[in-house]
């Protein structure tokens, strides 16, 4: 039984994760339903999980090579994250073979830099920016550093300005600029669109740069009516085109 496999590294946990994960499948599911997933043709992540499961079933559990191919498979899984990666490497004494002196020094320096960065994030240089919304009687301020993604920011802004409605974003909360017609629909609607003033003093549509870069360069936010934001689109399109 695949889910009974217990290796002494984290993979046992990983299988448990899969087993307890919510799935759209027939009730009373188990390993056997894995085969059905493929036939159901769900999104890629599920197909890859299927590959992993079937591989586990066919290979000898004690085979060292199993460990190799599984660790390879893990890299393919988009959902594989660091927390379930087996810490087997760290647990082997003396591997990788680096002098303890060197290890300690490098790790100490890294810890220090991490601590310094965390400090900056928490107290020191918090990135408070003014947020104005057209038609709203008052401005607000948000600390950009407390959010990790655009979606979090939108959610927070939405709460702040209760009559605030967002333009349609894709699943990652980023306005899809590559599709010109979509953008035009967005801008022609009466929905509000978040824009920001960057370091150069230009007014940009929120969402085109990676989040970290946005936090670094955003000086203030302005939530404009879609129709007013039209003037920004060509610039945003230009910047995007030059980037791709």
């Amino acid at each position, binding site marked *: 039984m695949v889910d009974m496999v217990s290796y002494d590294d984290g993979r046992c946990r990983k299988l448990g994760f899969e087993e307890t994960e919510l799935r759209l499948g027939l009730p009373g599911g188990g390993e056997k339903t894995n085969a059905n997933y493929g036939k159901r043709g769900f999104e890629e992540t599920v197909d890859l999980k299927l590959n992993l499961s079937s591989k586990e079933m066919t290979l000898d559990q004690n085979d060292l090579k199993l460990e190799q191919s599984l660790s390879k498979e893990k890299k393919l899984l988009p959902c594989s994250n660091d927390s379930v990666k087996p810490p087997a490497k760290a647990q082997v004494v003396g591997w990788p073979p680096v002098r303890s002196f060197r290890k300690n020094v*490098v790790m100490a320096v890294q810890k220090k*830099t991490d601590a310094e960065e965390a400090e900056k994030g928490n107290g020191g240089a918090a990135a408070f920016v003014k947020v104005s919304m057209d038609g709203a009687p008052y401005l607000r301020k948000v600390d950009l550093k407390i959010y990790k993604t655009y979606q979090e920011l939108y959610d927070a802004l939405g709460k702040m300005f209760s009559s605030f409605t967002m333009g349609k974003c894709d699943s990652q909360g980023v306005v899809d600029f590559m599709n010109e017609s979509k953008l035009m629909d967005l801008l022609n609607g009466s929905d509000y669109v978040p824009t920001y003033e960057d370091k150069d003093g230009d007014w940009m549509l929120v969402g085109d740069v990676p989040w970290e870069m946005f936090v670094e360069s955003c000086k203030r936010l302005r939530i404009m009516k879609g129709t007013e934001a039209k003037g920004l689109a060509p610039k945003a399109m230009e910047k995007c085109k030059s980037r791709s």
Partner: protein
Amino acid sequence: MCLFQSIMNYFPEEVLEHVFDFLTSHRDRNAVSLVCKSWYSVERCSREKVFIGNCYAVNPERLIARFPRVRSLTLKGKPHFADFNLVPHDWGGYVYPWIEAMAKNGINLEELRLKRMVVSDESLELLAKSFPNFKSLVLVSCEGFTTDGLAAIASNCRYLRELDLQENEVDDRKGQWLSCFPDSCTSLVSLNFTCLKGEVNVAALERLVARCRNLKSLRLNHAVPLDVLQKILAQAPQLTDLGTGSFISDPDSETCAKLKNIMKKSKSIRTLSGFLDVNPRCLPAVYPVCTNLTSLNLSYAPGIYSTELTKLICHCEKLERLWILDTIGDKGLGVVASTCKELQELRVFPSDFYGVGNAAVTEEGLVAISAGCPKLNSILYFCQQMTNAALITVAKNCPNFIRFRLCTLDATVPDAVTNLPLDEGFGAIVQSCKGLKRLSISGLLTDQVFLYIGMYAEQLEMLSIAFAGDSDKGMLYVLNGCKKLKKLEIRDCPFGNAALLADVGKYETMRSLWMSSCEVTFGACKTLAEKMPRLNVEVFNEGEQIDGSPDGRHRVEKMYLYRTLVGPRSDAPDFVWTL
């Protein structure tokens, strides 16, 4: 032979001695002393530099008896795997008896170089007080001393030229050891205290540098700030080797500007290291010096990211030796390959010890280097993954490797593309690099790789193996094939008694053998020890029953054997059984 001997006897001994003076390598001198009795005699009385690769192979008395005129002694203590915490604490390797014996016998010691030894403050004090001409102390990977011991050296060694501390575990008592150099000390040529963790008296440091006009090599620790570095450099334009202390400052500050000016004027710096604490935006200050650099060590600078690293390296066209962290990435290595055409030695160390998955380097970087750097002969490469194809390409591009050490972060990872073992790749390396002296292998490996090593690695002297092989055959291929093998260290491999006992005479031709987490049993070790009285076979018993003789079939966790002229050592701790 008779004719030869009579011809040689025609020359008075002084002439022989003069001829031998030209022989600096200890190997050559060892060879010379085997020719005949009179050569042995002349050689031993004239030898000034003695190298002892295993401090327990001989003892101080024999050293002094054979080489009464020794002035420079190099000693190595613990086995190499001690570096990776595989050797229990208190195993041994004490330098005190050596210093004591030489002091008692009036040896005119001038230079002491120690590696992986236990050095107490007491030994340093005795050293400092016993040898009036003492000039040079080099300690690498040692432990057991504090800054008090250093103070003794500084205070008493009037003609000290070199104090070089590399990667030692030093208890920093935060005393004033540096201030202990008397004002009359002007002889320093080399001072390296990078591994010390505490503050030093910077005023004393500045004065010391100012009065030592012959100072060529200065490596500071992280407690020395950038503004002090700038002042020191202004006083020492003759430096050829610089290790920065802390490299943090506001890049727009006057300090940085002054530093950059000094760097522009400095024509002699050839070796650069340090940058433990670094603000990467200050790095451009050192660009002027980069054009002349032959050796660069940034392996303790995780604060410098890939882009800044490559910007720096772009200026280093004369680089022959580069030590960096894997934060450089494959792309960065590509830049190295296209810039550093004189590169001979490359070491890429890991920056991520918990496998969190930060990008490391892969086979791509290694291939790029091999293609771009035709003079490459020594490599230490920690990487995320490897392929046979890449190793085969590297072997073709670089047939001149003398040292090839590859370490995959996952010890048993197979070829990243084919999922096969990496046997063929390493096989290509040993076949192509006919001068290979040192090899470390890793990744998924079967007995096949050892067959290749035994067949082709004719010059191999040191081999490090971990998590490799399928059976005794692997080890046998190596022992039978590598005629020049001196050091073999094995961990976590399925090699057992049959391999260990197949050719017991072999071990007397080697310096040492280390086997841990393998399949050898206590009984086999005992058998070996009984057959070979000139080997010390040490078995470590940590946490096991010491009373009563253990079962012969009991697997031995760690075994270290070495040839010796002086029998079992008297300073072995309880957990070490010399059989």
